[in-house]
């Protein structure tokens, strides 16, 4: 009989913080029978695992933990180890750096405004997730990657399939369909290469990139594009939803934000990512026996670092269960990970969430939840509300 309380597949509560705190207090590095894995719940422990990429491999999939490494072409970015990971990441950093993303700010602001226009045109009630947050994230990914209009639907569908996949303990039905999507993206790569593409979008850059005079394998590039698109679409959408729910459940903090939206958006985004970020946990596989905070993790143990627990560790954050937009250390959160796999989309994500939430509160007076968001997507990897129904005051006529 285990005392571990975190049971994300079978009994994931809408508010998991008390369970995670109990597990952390009892033992921050502990076997979790429901996960069939070691769970790490302290800030120091999570950081230690994420930085020890030599001991903790990322190649056993990032959606659910496999018994064998992924086929090589699917070992991309978050699911790759060095030196393969290094080679791929170097292709991305220039396109996704803070300065490059800052140049996209006019796009982000204009998009948020247009999407709020659409909400206003449709009435005074809307689902924040599907009518707004998802459209914000899909449009940013399409803009950055240069996804052709006719393919946008299929990228969106693919992100949905990957979201559904992480609810399960294994792949179940979607693996074949996701593989089919990689094959179709590989076709896109071939076409882009054949046309000698000249666009400055990321897909074209990835298609034409060379290392030592060789282009990358088209299936590897396709898998990389698939992962970037799916991760970018899902996580940012969830981050926007989680932050708005946090603000609505803390009216004092929301009112403080409303009084100075321009000055406080960055801080609000950081605290939102700390308090209830979209990444609940990340999978690793221990390759050779390692120590984490003095506790042994055995070779071949599956390991889940519970980022959400780390972000509520009282050793690092004072009164961690409080949502407080005036924290000076909120940006220390581990929602973007740590070490070599630090989220390559972090700059874009912060900008997307900030511009989207600012536009919403600036333009929709009396914005409020219609009924509490209360259903969480199951599984250990994400924090995400299925539906967030909202309304606002109609404009005075």
């Amino acid at each position, binding site marked *: 009989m285990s005392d571990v309380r975190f049971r994300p597949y079978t009994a994931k509560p809408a508010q998991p913080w008390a369970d995670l705190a109990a597990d952390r207090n009892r033992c921050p590095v502990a076997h979790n029978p429901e996960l069939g894995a070691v769970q790490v719940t302290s800030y120091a422990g999570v950081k230690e695992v994420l930085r020890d990429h030599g001991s903790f491999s990322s190649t056993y999939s990032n959606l659910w933990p496999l018994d064998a490494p992924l086929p090589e072409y699917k070992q991309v970015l978050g699911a790759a180890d060095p030196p393969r990971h290094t080679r791929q990441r*170097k292709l991305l*950093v220039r396109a996704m*750096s*803070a300065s490059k993303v800052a140049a996209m700010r006019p796009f982000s602001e204009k998009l948020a405004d247009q999407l709020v226009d659409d909400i206003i045109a449709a009435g005074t009630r809307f689902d924040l997730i599907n009518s707004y947050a998802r459209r914000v994230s899909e449009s940013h990914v399409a803009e950055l990657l240069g996804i052709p209009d006719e393919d946008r639907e299929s990228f969106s569908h693919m992100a949905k399939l990957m979201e559904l996949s992480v609810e399960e303990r294994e792949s179940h039905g979607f693996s074949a369909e996701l593989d089919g999507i990689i094959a179709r993206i590989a076709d896109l790569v071939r076409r882009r290469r054949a046309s000698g593409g000249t666009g400055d979008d990321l897909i074209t850059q990835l298609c034409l990139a060379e290392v030592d005079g060789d282009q990358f394998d088209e299936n590897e590039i396709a898998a990389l594009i698939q992962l970037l698109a799916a991760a970018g679409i899902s996580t940012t959408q969830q981050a926007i939803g989680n932050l708005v729910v946090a603000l609505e459940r803390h009216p004092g903090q929301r009112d403080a934000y409303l009084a100075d939206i321009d000055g406080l958006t960055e801080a609000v985004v950081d605290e939102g990512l700390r308090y209830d970020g979209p990444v609940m946990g990340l999978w690793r596989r221990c390759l050779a026996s390692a120590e984490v905070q003095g506790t042994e993790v055995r070779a071949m143990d599956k390991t889940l670092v519970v980022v959400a627990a780390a972000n509520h560790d009282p050793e690092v954050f004072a009164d961690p269960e409080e949502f407080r937009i005036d924290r000076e250390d909120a940006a220390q959160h581990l929602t973007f990970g740590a070490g*070599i796999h*630090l989220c390559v989309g972090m*700059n874009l994500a912060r900008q997307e969430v900030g511009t989207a939430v600012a536009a919403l509160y600036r333009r929709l007076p009396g914005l409020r939840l219609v009924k509490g968001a209360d259903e969480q997507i199951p599984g250990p990897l994400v924090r995400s509300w299925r539906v967030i129904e909202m309304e606002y005051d109609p404009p005075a006529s």
Partner: protein
Amino acid sequence: MANVVKVDHDLCSGTGHCAEIAPKLFSMSDRRAWPEERTTEQAEDTELAHRAADGCPWFAISVSDSTDNEENQ
């Protein structure tokens, strides 16, 4: 041998890894990292600078032998 440490601010995204690994060589300001000194003279500092460069998730840090950079001297 003196080594030149540089941070490419087009790439740096202010994650602070370098300042954590080598606080005497890097400081954080304005959401960017800044080398405290452009050159490192001591072998242990050079080693530390290399570790910071290897650990930077944005590949923003370069450490090079100053003789490679005469145009910058």
